[in-house]
């Protein structure tokens, strides 16, 4: 359960999530300071007060379009936020899965900032409006990476298997 702390529209680009001018900063421990840097209100709140873990960002379609920069996933992950979107751009979604940022594809989601959301299996419940929405399941191949706790651990496991063979 958590509150919607940011509500966004369609085609939110990686330049909006993590502007290019901060791209020389790469370490997941350092990227959170620039999260949505040009949304100054949100960024200031994130850095000063933070959010309760499990809070949500909600967006419409094509969230994370644009560049392959992984900082866009690590910067959000730094605040333990979950992202609910009607749809995600491919590279962003894969980066999120690889780094363990929780993304929920929910094609019909309706929510406003401040609403309380709860994930219940394959449904997402907006407790504020009382409406419930279907969540699309993750393909099995992606689930394997999530279950292994991210791509680093998953690749390490595969590497060790290869060594044994």
């Amino acid at each position: 359960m958590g509150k919607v702390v940011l509500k966004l529209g369609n085609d939110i680009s990686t330049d909006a999530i993590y502007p290019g001018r901060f791209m020389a900063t790469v370490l997941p421990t350092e990227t959170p300071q620039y999260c949505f840097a040009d949304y100054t209100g949100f960024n200031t709140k994130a850095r000063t007060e933070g959010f309760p873990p499990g809070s949500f960002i909600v967006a419409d379609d094509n969230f994370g379009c644009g560049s392959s920069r992984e900082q866009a996933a690590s910067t959000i992950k730094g605040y333990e936020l979950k992202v609910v979107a009607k749809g995600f751009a491919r590279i962003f979604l894969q980066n999120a899965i690889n780094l363990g940022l929780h993304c929920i594809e929910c094609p019909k989601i309706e929510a406003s900032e401040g609403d309380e959301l709860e994930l219940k299996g394959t449904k997402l419940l907006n407790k504020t409006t009382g409406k419930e929405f279907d969540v699309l399941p993750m393909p099995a191949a992606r689930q394997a990476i999530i279950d292994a706790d991210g791509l680093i651990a998953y690749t390490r496991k595969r590497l060790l298997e290869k060594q044994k063979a």
Partner: protein
Amino acid sequence: MGMTVVEKILARATGQEKVKAGDVLEPKVDLAMSHENAALVINQFKEIYKGTNLKANVWDPSKIAIIFDHRVPAESAKTATNQKKIREFVAEQGIDKFHDIRADEGGICHQVLPESGYVRPGAVIVGTDSHTTTHGAMGAFSFGIGATEMASVWTLGTVLNVEVPKTIKVIVNGKFNENVGPKDLILYIIGKLTAQGANFKVIEFHGETIKNMSLSGRLVLCNMSVEAGATSGIVPADKETERYLREVAGVTDEINFVAPDEDADYVQVMEINTAVIQPQVACPNTVDNVKQVSTVTDKKINQIVIGSCTNGRLDDLKTAADILRDKKISKGVRMLVFPASWRIYKEALNEGYVSDLINAGAVVMNPGCGCCLGVHQGALGDGEVSLSTTNRNFKGRMGNPNAEVYLCSPAVAASSAITGYITVPEKGNN
């Protein structure tokens, strides 16, 4: 049901007779490209090996390419230190497809790869850059991935969990109108498909117009396919691909032409006649906000940019030079030119294009990404407007969220430099 080009490539890369859209595969990688973000890849690569008692060596140094282009020469101590770390890693691992900040080998990764002969038809190519789609122009399946995924490729030599994408077939016929070319075509297509219309799909280009198009133009189409969300663009390899590989890239070994089956399965077919396409412009702040140039001609411009991995090639510089020769850029407008590689820069010098541009008032910068991603050079002031031949106009893209970016062809950019307003190129240019 037959196979598309990408399905055929993936069948070969996984040693299977047949694959189809939706299958999840782990293809072998023929080329793995990174730029300065290799600094993060190295970090994640070392993480993978932590606690394994194994020495962290890449799977095959001959299949890794690293090209410095995003911030060259380094704009900050941080970038310079990242670049230093990468140089050390490259030397330690024996990676020789490394292009440093040097005028005898440097440039933007998406130009250096094709012109160096690293891209082959039928190959599987991954790059830590979303515009890795560019190399589909040479008949490869080439797509962008993140840094951690690249670290995994460096370790295993395969990309994990690739879901075979569905393919959209785009058939283009007809001769281009005057002052209309590949950039206008791809902007037109993105306007029709929208910024998400090709998400998780491949765009395969066909038709007479494509057949007659130079490789340089095909690179523009595939470069910007990602702006419709495509995993990759692809032009099946043909005579023109072969010409480029032999004459420009100096490749002498056998070429593997991969064509789609007649009965391949396409999720969507789009037919375009070029007669309907007039000069196009993508307006702020999304690439699919495409209009005809003639409808926005009252827009005053502060900065013109010609260059990038989209339109910084020799034919683009020629177009600009032909329009600006013996003319002057409008007062109050600054024009920045970034050739896509040093090789192109030298060719443009020899042809006299660089003098033409400089005499008109343009600042010809060193090859590299320059102001395309808003980190390095040519930032915009608050409220300023840039007209650019690059590929993205998202808010903040050129370093200032309070500035606007319009995207267009080199002909529109050069014509607008003279008037200071977004301008339809005059007849007779091209």
